């Protein structure tokens, strides 16, 4: 055990706290008075910094709490709901999955490589602190238009950052979403998801208990990076944001990897009581959250925290967001056992304090008290707002039915859609991510849902992350419900039953009533869908203040749903797999063009009501798909989403370069309608009747529309037949993104 005794910095002069200083820390007048009320005196400089971080929007959820409480969090398979570092669901076979998603939007816009990399690092730590070994990552990325300032640089940096971090730690990135929309020109979204596996009896929680138990610090030393990161994430961007580059953390995936191995090993000894990542607001949030959960107090000797550089005082140490650091509580007397494991992995362990009975967080600096705060009061009495909400004034105009130009050449329009970055192949992105390491990847990126092997069982795990910011912008409630419904549908396409959901809610400034209205509506839409489709929310994250100047991003409630595939035998592909298979379309079109890719990408119209979400129809379709997969009678299942029927059909052809001949009851623009609760399946001709009968029993409209085979996509619609070569469409679709990003193709 190393304890640093360095008297050189013993002399400490902290600035005197004033109301102006509190305001500069993001505490408003009322909040500052509340703090003074709790303390019965003026706070010290360190106390002000600590409280401002704890009460920041990012850490306290003060604007979102009242609505988040509406989300359903209970379910048959929920082992751990919101409140811990990650949510946990029961997968069966003695395994549980811990997962969570988090945003790293602000840092990624300022410094894309490090911002995105540390986003991955943080979410991985949230998962392995639960005792779970991370086995999968997903990433949802929303960029602006490629020609917007810095945008190519941002795309390149974010993708490299995610890749370099996840690849080095050895966690496969098995799926995600990448979109492009002008609303993200000044504020991109980087949402990182991680999932870990643990045996059900080896779950770890982060409650500091047992007065006298030592508090240990492991991992990287503390530096100046990231000081005020949480506060930065709680403000909008302005011209000075560039000057905030020093508040972006720097990642070291190698240290993360050894920290991961050492922590998992140390947790197996039974000598660890609690463990938590020093994430947003660093030592402050990890220490206070652990104490709060354990209903204990703690004493931290801040002068014993290992430092990377000289000159850091208690204030900086409490607020640094240096990466790859863990705070843990060990059982008294067993510290050496723990330390030995970390040292074997080449990591430093320092004792920096202890758990105390009572409720005070006592912070000292060379024996002098620099902070003495009541833990529960600071967390229980944290501000909580029911902020004003107001429907945006232009909503009715934006929801007005758009004029829909009819396509003169549907397959020509299809080719034009496939050439847009939004609908083109994202392989350029995911090829830079290791998606097969750990040898569990049964279905990787590019399909509807990723599927992972659960080794030693016949089952698999399925994951999907979804959201359509255009829908949510036109009608947040429908958009919120749609995100959940689409994720469940994607899971159903691989036969998976949903077990739980995590979310990452990206919105603008909550102090603006129309933003708060968007938030409330989106959460209510999600909530309704989660209840109807039986998907509890087990963890989540809110990211507000995603705006530059007064321009907010489209509201983007990203969801990720995790499910179980009972038997991987007979798993269908998302594309056509076999010539001669018959194609069956499930669901009914209602010609819903509002917010469609067709209108937006080909006609620059972003208007109308987004497609309605019929939750009962979604539930019936999902159940039908799961049954068909389980029976092993279909070789292809693919849902209809952005771009509608034709885009989905083309995607299905690309998997194996197989053509298809279909005759559909869809006409003109309806070929691109985005009506929900639809999918198509393909099966051997002998199973067609069975599939149709299954659909009828579940009241899912179904119709045989054609046959797989050949090298062309042959479309008959309204009595007219058109043809496109699959190879040509594939070339357009697969080269669009590399061409748009690099202007040239490479291997």
């Amino acid at each position: 055990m190393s304890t640093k005794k360095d008297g050189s910095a013993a002399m400490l002069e902290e600035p005197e706290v004033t109301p102006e200083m509190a305001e500069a820390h993001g505490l408003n007048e009322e909040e500052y008075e509340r703090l003074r009320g709790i303390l019965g005196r003026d706070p010290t400089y360190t106390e002000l910094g600590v409280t401002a971080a704890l009460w920041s929007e990012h850490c306290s959820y003060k604007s979102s709490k009242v609505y988040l409480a509406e989300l359903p969090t209970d379910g048959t398979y929920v082992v751990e709901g919101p409140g811990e570092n990650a949510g946990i669901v029961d997968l069966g076979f003695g395994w549980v999955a811990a997962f969570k998603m988090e945003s790293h939007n602000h840092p990624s816009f300022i410094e894309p490589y490090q911002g995105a990399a540390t986003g991955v690092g943080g979410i991985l730590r949230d998962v392995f602190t639960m005792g779970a070994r991370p086995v999968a990552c997903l990433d949802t990325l929303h960029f602006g238009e490629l020609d917007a300032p810095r945008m190519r640089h941002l795309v390149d940096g974010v993708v490299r950052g995610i890749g370099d971090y996840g690849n080095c730690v050895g966690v496969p990135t098995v799926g995600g979403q990448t979109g492009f929309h002008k609303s993200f020109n000044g504020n991109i979204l980087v949402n990182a998801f991680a999932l870990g596996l643990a045996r059900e009896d080896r779950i770890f929680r982060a409650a500091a208990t047992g007065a006298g138990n030592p508090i240990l610090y492991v991992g990287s030393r503390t530096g100046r990076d990231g000081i005020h990161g949480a506060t930065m994430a709680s403000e909008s961007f302005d011209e000075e944001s560039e000057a905030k580059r020093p508040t972006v953390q720097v990642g070291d995936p190698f240290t993360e990897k050894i920290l991961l191995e050492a922590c998992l090993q140390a947790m197996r000894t039974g000598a660890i009581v609690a463990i938590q990542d020093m994430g947003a607001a660093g030592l402050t949030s990890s220490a206070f959250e652990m104490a709060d959960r354990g209903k204990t107090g703690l004493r931290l000797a801040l002068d014993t925290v290992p430092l990377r550089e000289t000159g850091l005082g208690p204030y900086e140490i409490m607020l640094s967001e240096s990466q790859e650091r863990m705070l843990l509580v060990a059982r008294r007397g067993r510290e050496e056992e723990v330390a030995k494991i970390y040292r074997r992995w080449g990591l430093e362990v320092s004792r920096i304090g202890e758990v105390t009975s009572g409720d005070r967080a006592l912070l000292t600096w060379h024996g002098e008290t620099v902070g003495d705060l009541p833990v529960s009061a600071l967390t229980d009495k944290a501000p909580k707002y029911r902020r004003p909400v107001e429907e945006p004034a232009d909503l009715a105009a934006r929801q007005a039915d758009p004029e829909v130009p009819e396509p003169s050449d549907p397959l020509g329009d299809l080719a034009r859609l496939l050439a847009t970055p939004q609908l083109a192949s994202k392989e350029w992105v995911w090829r830079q991510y290791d998606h097969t390491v750990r040898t569990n990847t049964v279905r990787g990126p590019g399909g509807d849902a990723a599927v992972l092997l659960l080794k030693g069982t016949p089952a698999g795990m399925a994951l999907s992350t979804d959201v359509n910011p255009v829908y949510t912008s036109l009608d947040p409630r429908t958009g919120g419900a749609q995100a959940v419904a689409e994720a469940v549908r994607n899971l159903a396409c691989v036969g998976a039953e949903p077990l739980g959901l995590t979310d990452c809610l990206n919105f603008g400034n909550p102090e603006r009533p129309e933003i708060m209205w968007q938030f409330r509506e989106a959460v209510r839409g999600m909530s309704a869908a989660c209840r109807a489709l039986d998907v509890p929310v087990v963890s989540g994250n809110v990211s507000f203040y995603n705006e530059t100047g007064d321009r907010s991003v489209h509201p983007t409630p990203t969801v990720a749903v995790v499910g179980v595939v009972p038997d991987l035998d007979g798993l269908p592909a998302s594309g056509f797999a076999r010539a001669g298979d018959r194609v069956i379309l499930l669901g009914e079109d209602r010609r819903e063009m509002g917010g469609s890719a067709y209108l937006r990408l080909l006609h620059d119209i972003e208007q109308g009501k987004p497609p309605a979400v019929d939750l009962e129809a979604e539930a019936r379709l999902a159940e039908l798909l799961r049954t068909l997969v389980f029976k092993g009678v279909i070789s292809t299942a693919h849902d209809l989403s952005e771009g509608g029927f034709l885009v989905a059909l083309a995607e299905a052809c690309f998997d194996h370069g197989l053509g298809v001949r279909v005759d559909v009851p869809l006409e003109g623009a309806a070929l691109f309608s985005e009506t929900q609760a639809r999918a198509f399946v393909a099966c051997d001709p002998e199973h067609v009747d069975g599939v149709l009968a299954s659909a009828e029993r579940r009241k899912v409209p179904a119709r045989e529309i054609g046959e797989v085979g050949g090298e062309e996509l042959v479309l008959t619609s309204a009595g007219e037949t058109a043809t496109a070569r699959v190879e040509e469409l594939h070339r357009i679709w697969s080269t669009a993104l590399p061409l748009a990003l690099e202007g040239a193709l490479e291997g």
Partner: protein
Amino acid sequence: MRCGVVMFPGSNCDHDVYHVLKHVLGQETRFLWHQDRSLKGTELVVLPGGFSYGDYLRGGAMAALSPLMAKVREHAEDGGLVLGICNGFQILLEMGLLPGAMRRNRNLRFVCKDVHVRVERDDLPFTHAYRKGQVLRMPVAHAEGNYEDSGEHLDALEAAGQVVFRYVSPDGEPVAEGDGWNPNGSARGIAGITNEEGNVLGMMPHPERVSETILGGTDGLALFASAVGAAGELLEAAR
């Protein structure tokens, strides 16, 4: 056969290789810690993929100096089997157990995708379950797999028959260094090489990731089955 999978700090394909040897092929398999000073009777040593020591200096450069690697060198010099995959291949190059060097991928990006490699030697302990000329489909996942050496050395390597795997098109035809089927720009499409004696093999593709049907292929399983000397029946049983 007694198999040992070396764990360096930063190895991340160690569990994957262990799984194939132990659970798919049923071999006696153990992890070896990089700071150990004994191979503990291991007959087949595998250096797995990953980012040993973060690869912050150069891929494999630090790992090559680990205490255990002195024992691995002795083992190789005694004719023992050593297989280096991905980062393991880089380590073998850094140790000088195999000739040549690795540069960053031609497009300077990490690449993870399936490639096709042609088997150039089927008379090695690692490849006798393959046929010469057979085309295998395996994933690569690396940022530094662009094999390089002087023209003279490459000629000598070819002449000595030390090229074991070569990136080719799906139908087995040679491809240019800038072609998409050569994922990293590797000289002469080199994906894997052996030493003069044929007991040390280094390769960039990951055979452990295609050793079970459910994961999309078994083209890699024959390599491990060959190496553990049980190609015939084990391969049959595992399939």
